[in-house]
């Protein structure tokens, strides 16, 4: 009983204090430090350099509002950490999650708080509609996409292109043509990191988004159309034009299946180079910097994934979405801050960051490469689609040696077998989605 009283007294005291604080700031002309003394806990995946940069974003929030923010990095174990804490009744205030599936699961379980109207307004204002849709479940907005990855970039070696006088291709036909010209110089056109299944799903998603269009992409992601659909066949046929020619792919299909993703980048930018181009997301740049002597922006450049059959600009993206697990003033303020361009600007200037927020001025990004990556992401507007394999059940889209990964690996080994691949994809998908 007495403890209850004490608690009540404390709550009252805090309420008075905050009320006073609030009153004080209004009187003082709004220096904005209305949240002093409150603490917000944030959980995310970033560690190392990324953690330091994100903490700068958070200290900008502290400067603005006075609230303390504590950041806990959880690395790849974030889903486990988050679920454990939710079940244990001590959720963090805010979590930054990379898996939309997890957000959906938490939202359905009622662990997430719907975002306030203020945040919703900011999200609508500063982002293409597609980002809001991605954060919405059952009609309510739960997530703000804070950091994004551009997974529609093809990186090429300037030297290899120079040898044949090639320009970055804009269409799939040109892409193949440039590839064949490169083959004449004794190099392969592309190096494919086929030992890792996720690189292959990214290939497929980019081609499918362009050959089948965003609407079909959404349907396939939800398994509303089967994988035996003619649109999937078309995408595989398009891919087979590249994968089916052993001269174009470094080492042919069998060689590619022995190549891990970092190796595929080194094959292009290391010494001696074995191929001229490698496709993957924006993080190829960091692999180049850490593993080769090539300079990003000079020796290593990129172009956007070529258009197929006149398709419009489209980007396959990944990203970290901020969700709210507690409903208090400081948390609401932090979500508002993360949804505003101010937060993104801080990290953008530090580098290694892309934002879906279209109101972050281009010159906030530190170099041309990042500027271009961010611009493509924003320019694609509503043609941005989230990585399909990340939306699918993990048994299908995220398991080593199984599901979509293995089916596409088998397809890379034998690109003539389109029928078999379609059957396999569909039967694996049916099994994974039905559960």
């Amino acid at each position, binding site marked *: 009983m007495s403890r209850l009283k004490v608690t009540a007294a404390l709550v009252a005291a805090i309420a008075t204090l905050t009320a006073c604080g609030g009153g004080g700031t209004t009187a003082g002309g709004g220096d904005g430090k209305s949240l002093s003394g409150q603490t917000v806990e944030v959980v995310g995946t970033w560690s190392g350099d990324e953690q330091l940069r994100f903490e700068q974003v958070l200290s900008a929030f502290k400067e603005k509002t006075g609230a303390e923010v504590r950041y806990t990095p959880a690395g790849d174990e974030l889903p486990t950490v988050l679920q454990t804490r939710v079940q244990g009744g001590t959720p963090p205030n805010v979590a930054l999650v990379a898996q939309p599936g997890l957000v959906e699961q938490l939202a359905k379980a009622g662990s997430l708080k719907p975002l306030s109207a203020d945040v919703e307004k900011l999200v609508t204002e500063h982002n293409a509609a597609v980002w809001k849709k991605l954060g919405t479940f059952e009609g309510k907005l739960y997530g703000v996409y804070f950091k994004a990855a551009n997974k529609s970039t093809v990186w090429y070696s300037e030297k290899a292109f120079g040898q044949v006088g090639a320009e970055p291709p804009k269409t799939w036909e040109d892409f193949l043509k440039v590839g064949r010209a490169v083959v*004449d110089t004794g190099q392969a056109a592309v190096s494919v990191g086929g030992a890792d299944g996720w690189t292959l799903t990214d290939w497929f998603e980019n081609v499918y988004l362009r050959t089948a269009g965003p609407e079909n992409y959404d349907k396939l992601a939800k398994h509303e159309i089967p994988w035996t659909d003619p649109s999937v066949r078309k995408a595989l046929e398009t891919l087979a034009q590249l994968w089916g020619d052993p001269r174009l792919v470094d080492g042919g299909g069998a060689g590619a299946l022995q190549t891990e993703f970092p190796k595929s980048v080194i094959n292009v930018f290391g010494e001696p180079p074995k191929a001229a181009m490698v496709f993957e997301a924006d993080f190829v740049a960091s692999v180049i910097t850490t593993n080769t002597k090539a300079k990003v922006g000079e020796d290593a450049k990129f172009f956007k994934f070529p258009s197929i059959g006149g398709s419009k600009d489209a980007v396959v993206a990944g990203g970290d979405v901020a969700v709210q697990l507690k409903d208090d003033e400081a948390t609401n303020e932090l979500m508002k801050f993360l949804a505003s361009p101010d937060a993104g600007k801080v990290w953008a200037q530090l580098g290694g960051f892309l934002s879906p927020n279209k109101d972050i001025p281009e010159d906030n990004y530190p170099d041309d490469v990042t500027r271009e990556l961010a611009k493509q992401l924003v320019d694609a507007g509503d043609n941005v689609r989230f990585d399909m394999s990340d939306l699918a059940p993990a048994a299908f889209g995220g398991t080593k040696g199984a599901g979509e990964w293995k089916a596409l690996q088998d397809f890379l080994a034998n690109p003539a077998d389109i029928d078999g691949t379609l059957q396999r994809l569909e039967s694996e998908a049916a099994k994974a989605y039905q559960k």
Partner: protein
Amino acid sequence: MTVTATRSPAGSRAGGGRRKLAVDPTPGRSPRQAVPFLLPALLVLSALVLYPLVYSLVRSFFDRSGSTFVGVSNYVNLFTDPRTLTAFKNNVIWVVVAPAVVTGLGLIFAVLTERIKWATAFRLVLFMPMAISLFASGIIFRLVYEEDPKQGVVNAVTVGVHDLFSDPSPYPGARPRDGQPFTPAEEGFTSTKTFAPGTAVSVPLVGFQPGQIPKEASPASQPSSDARELRGVVWLDVSVGGKAGQLDQGERGMPGLVVEAVRDGQVVGRTTTGNDGRFTFPDLTSGDYTLRMPPSNFALPFRGLTWLGPSLITPVIISSWIWIMTGFAITFIAAGLSAIPRDALEAARVDGATEWQVFKRVTVPLLSPVLLVVFVTLVINVLKIFELVFVIAPGSVQEEANVLALQMWQVSFGAGGDQGVGSALAVVLFLLVAPAMLFNIRRFRREQS
């Protein structure tokens, strides 16, 4: 073992005359008094071993959520899933090959090292791999078997040996440009047209790095035709802004390339290109000739084998396990060897037996109990092999290399997380290990009695 040892004599006595034993004459052997001493161990045992075992068994009859009873459907699912069947097949290969090879090697090494001076040091070295975690060993072997000869030591050796016996070709991978009148054949690129003396043939090649043409090569030019000679030029048709199939400025000839003139299937002339890529057949009788460039010009360098590909992956992983476990076998067998009565060996030698006969007729039979224990222990070890497969097999061949323990982990905790099927797999794995365990326990018991 102590449990059974204490219980059985006490039990038999209890059965013999319970009433008489109201006061136990030998208090230390009373079952009632043993209980409090055994209780802690029993508790720990049942909490850590018995309960999980029973729970897995029960869990294997429920669906993925754990709330619906599904009967044996998890087991049906298991024996119809091609991935699990591959895992079964691989496990059989493992059990048949690996323990026998390791026991054999262990025996050989133990016997051979017995007589040398530095036996302990030698065995220590062989035992060292045991000190490394399986995970780390896996990473080592992943690199050892890497396909690129610059990284994988096995392929580096293979390629080195191969190249001792065959010279590398001057222009690996080069080929006539598509659309030119040459077709690939077993004897080399053969012209589809025929040429008579007096013509000058141009042969544009592609598929070779301009920077790798020998330094002495000079810009290629079209030879003038001469009525008595069949002439031509072979050049690398790659340059910035150059037209396909045309001799453009800056395109260089390919020296040292062998060209043959063929008539009616017979090679009648053979020549080599000069620094400007030109070749000449000076004394051909008039008539039509086919031109041919033999494959020795273009053979791709030998790159070794794809060890980590789908066909070789299981043998490769087994080989790394052998490297790790041989030390274990040696240690045990060497210990057994030192316990063999020397006089038996001496007696055999005095009777005139050769060393081989001593080994076969005396050493091995006397060692057989130890060999059997080592073998059975290894079988158990092999059945639960996991890390090596997980680490060594690249993602693209993980399915081909799959084993039951890995499959169990993937099914239960990997994507999807169906712990019902996972438990079913665990039960099957347990049933497979059980006979080996029972066998070992029986042996221990027999030795004790």
